[in-house]
């Protein structure tokens, strides 16, 4: 099993000859040697050699996203991602052995506190303030003791001292990703640190990090008009698929998550056979595989729970929601769309580019330049594992109303359903798609994350390139059919952000005319 399975060529035949404005030059330039390898424990590696600079980018993805969370534990995937930076049985503590029982006692006290403060109330009883105070005091003492062992952010410090850049991680609805770029001579260090945190991470400082994530939520959602609107709109657009709950979690869930839940979730999902690794850069594949087997090879595989099956039912009629917030109006229109890889996803992607990509795109030209109804507008599909949305987002320009903007968007959509798109416009969109892809793939980190994401969502990293062919093959007629099938009022959620305090519920319905002079709430 030591043999390298294949030397494949990423050959991106990006454009058909008939539309060969950008065409063959690009096809010729993503011919990079790719090595694909699965370890005995099921952990999969993809190595792309690109030797422009003596560096490499590493990407690890676990197939677990917020879609896997159960009710009451939303936000757990993302909090776990934070906890993966808190050290292991080898790193992050001066004495992991003596620290261990303290962490267990802290968990137990948190559970008692939660029982006293919340579960008692649920049962109709009244929490005992003296008992709460006693528990909190005991907890504070234990946390103080545990602190003495902690070495904070040691993973970051080691990577940084070794020249690491872009150390980060992200959690999405369908996956959890970890990134780092390093000088090429640090490959073995990378393997050591990453395999170590897959083997036995220690979630120390769990309850403090839970506070940090609550601040993250306040920053991204609670104080952001766009964050508020997006969370409410997505929550309304999905019904059966758990994409309806935010990746950051509902606030009430978040403040009650505990360490044993995170440990169980880790145990279930962070198995080597549930992980994908993509390495791009100045690397020797044989050396990478040797190092991978040495460090990751003995991680035990586990049974992975079968992927849940979710299917969004067809929508029967338009949904309208209204978010009140002390801010100027914004509009979000979400049309039901198919999941990633669906045949209709390609014409919808072309449709998105036609409507919203660049200064000469239809919505920009019409609504920003000609009619001056909005200051900015974006359109495009959002394809996820189990379902998708086609998103249009607009920021109106006073004194124009959300109703006016919505009507103007409708007019452009109606045009797409009746008049075929001209060959020149189709050509423009094809070229834009190609150039954007090339831009994203120009850096090692960009190529690694695109390959990893394609691999995880479709089962084949080559889909990153075959998708280009499918996009290129989309015809003007396909675009018109897709517009007719998907961009209908009965299949959408229209969300409006309107000025208000957000504390009182007033009348429903979007598009309340907004005057140019709205006073700011002084406090």
């Amino acid at each position, binding site marked *: 099993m030591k043999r390298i399975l294949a030397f494949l060529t990423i050959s991106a035949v990006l454009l058909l000859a008939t539309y060969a404005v950008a065409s063959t030059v690009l096809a010729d330039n993503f011919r990079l040697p790719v090595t694909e390898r699965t370890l005995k424990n099921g952990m999969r590696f993809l190595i792309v050699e690109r030797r422009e600079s003596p560096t490499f980018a590493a990407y690890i993805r676990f197939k677990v996203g917020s879609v896997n969370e159960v009710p009451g534990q939303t936000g757990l995937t993302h909090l776990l991602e934070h906890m993966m930076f808190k050290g292991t049985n080898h790193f992050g503590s001066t004495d992991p052995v003596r620290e261990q029982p303290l962490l267990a006692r802290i968990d137990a006290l948190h559970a008692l506190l939660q029982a006293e403060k919340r579960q008692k109330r649920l049962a109709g009883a009244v929490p005992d303030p003296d008992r709460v105070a006693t528990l909190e005091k005991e907890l504070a003492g234990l946390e103080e003791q545990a602190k003495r062992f902690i070495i904070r952010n040691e993973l970051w410090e080691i990577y940084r001292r070794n020249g690491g850049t872009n150390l980060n991680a992200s959690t999405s609805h369908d996956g959890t990703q970890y990134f780092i770029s390093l000088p090429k001579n640090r490959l073995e260090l990378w393997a050591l640190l990453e395999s170590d945190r897959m083997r036995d991470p220690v979630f120390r400082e769990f309850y403090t*990090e839970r506070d940090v994530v609550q601040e993250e939520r306040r920053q991204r959602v609670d104080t952001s008009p766009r964050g508020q609107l997006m969370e409410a709109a997505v929550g309304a657009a999905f019904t059966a698929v758990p994409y309806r709950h935010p990746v950051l979690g509902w606030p009430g869930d978040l403040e009650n998550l505990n360490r044993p839940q995170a440990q169980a979730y880790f145990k279930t999902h962070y198995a080597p056979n549930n992980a994908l690794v993509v390495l791009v850069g100045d690397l020797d594949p044989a050396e990478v595989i040797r190092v991978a087997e040495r460090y990751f090879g*003995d991680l035990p595989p586990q049974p992975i729970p079968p992927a849940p099956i979710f299917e969004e039912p067809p929508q029967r009629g338009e949904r309208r929601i209204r978010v009140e917030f002390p801010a100027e109006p914004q509009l979000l229109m979400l049309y039901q769309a198919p999941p990633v890889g669906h045949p209709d996803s390609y014409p919808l992607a072309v449709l998105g580019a036609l409507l919203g990509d660049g200064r000469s795109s239809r919505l920009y030209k019409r609504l*920003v330049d000609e009619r*001056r109804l909005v200051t900015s507008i974006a359109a495009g599909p959002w394809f996820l594992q189990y379902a998708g949305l086609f998103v249009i987002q607009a920021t109106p*320009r*006073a004194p124009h109303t959300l109703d006016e903007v919505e009507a103007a968007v409708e007019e452009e959509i109606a045009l797409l359903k009746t008049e075929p798109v001209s060959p020149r416009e189709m050509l423009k969109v094809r070229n834009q798609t190609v150039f954007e892809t090339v831009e994203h793939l120009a850096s090692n980190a960009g190529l690694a994350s695109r390959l990893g994401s394609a691999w995880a969502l479709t089962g084949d990293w080559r889909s990153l390139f075959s998708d280009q062919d499918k996009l290129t093959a989309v015809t003007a007629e396909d675009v018109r059919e897709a517009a007719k099938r998907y961009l209908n009022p009965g299949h959408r959620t229209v969300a409006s952000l309107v000025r208000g305090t957000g504390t009182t519920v007033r009348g429903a319905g979007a598009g309340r005319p907004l005057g140019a002079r709205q006073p700011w709430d002084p406090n």
Partner: protein
Amino acid sequence: MLTRRRGVPSRISSWLALAILVGGCAVAGSSQQASPRSPGFALVQQMSFAPLELAIPRVGREVERRVLSNGLVLYLATDRSLPVFKAYALFRAGSLYEEPSKPGVAQFTASQLRSGGTDVMSFAALDEELEVLGISIEAGVSSETISVSMSALAKDADRALELFADILRRPAFDATPLETYRGRVTEDLRRVAENPSRLMMQEFSRVMYTEAHPSGRPLTSAQARAIRREDLLAHFRRFLRPDNMFLAVVGDFSVDELAAKVQGRLGDWSAGSPLDLPTLPAVAPRFERGVYLVPRDLTQSNIVLGHFGIRRSNPDRYAIQIMDMILGGGGFSSRIMERVRSEEGLAYSVSSSFPTTTRDIGLFRVTVQTKNENVPRAVRTILDEMTRMRDSPVTPAELAGAKDAIINSFVFRFTSRFSIVTQLLTLDFDEYPPNYLDTLLDRYRAVTREDVQRVARQYLRPDDTTVLVVGGTAQIEPALAAFGPVSRLPVPAAE
């Protein structure tokens, strides 16, 4: 697995590996204040790494510098990695160069260079052709510069450069896109207050620089409405000239081919009258202990605190940069992040920034976002860390960590030919000496713990710090008084 290391130490020969060794000696040489470490850390310290070859790019090697007869300074480099053609132009024409009576004109000029069409092509036709060919041309503005960047496929290089040159030499500043842009700017200004971090930065600049400096006078809707096409033309004619221009061109061509292309499109651009650059307004630093509260009814406050810093000519800048990395600019390896976020759980975002590369004096700032009730505690913690940085030397491990990070990540500054060329061009534009990059790492290596403490004492002023809070609530106002006299600022209204 941690015990399975590579057993044979590699020969340490490159300057990079040597640098690590020097850092290691600094740690070993000091017995005091040994930082606590995990068992794993010691093992990692024993790992050895193969030497990494890194040639620091130089003019005359990877990159060629030429000056055209019209004064244009040209940086050229061949890049065979992708079939692309890229250009990047810089002019001394940013907002500090505006007539004081015409605020906003630099921003409008930059925007309309790209959006206003040219004498030979309408704005709509230009947008369409660029997008059909997949050519990107974008203009930007800063306090010092107007920049214009371009990227295209190599096979379209000639057409791309022609359009690029038309935009730079023959902009039309058409009235229609100008009015569209004006409307977008005024709408954007109406929305400043709904983005708390943007409002915080704007109001902090206003408080610190005051009316006396353009940076203290954010653009108003009335000013945006007053800008005329003639103002754009005047700014364009005065500053967008070949003798005020630095241009980098990189692509899948030989250097001579690139030079010939540029000569063909920009060589006959005459500078005309002598270049007349104004004296720029100078920053007059002023230190004030005080608190400004911009009330917003939100669950979380945005806080910035800071004071004036240094300009790039200051020889202490290397020590200051290392000091700031340890204080709050080094991500998770900095003291403020460790305490405010990791230890106390007060914030998701917290960091400091001590600019050391600005021409004039910049602002040292710490920003943090935390729920309202925690604002006083977060501010106190940050001020305490500033004081601690002054009162005691950093640990040898902290200093070594910061130096290692700078030295070992240096290679990432040169990952593409285009980034190499634009860096060399920008250093030249900013009047750095030609060997700047060659000696840069030595400057950092020379910094000692004593230097770090000395610059902390000299340049960090916790007792003269201005605090600005967007958010807050009436309940925390009394607690804020501990940090200086509290003033309320009005929330900018949507006009």
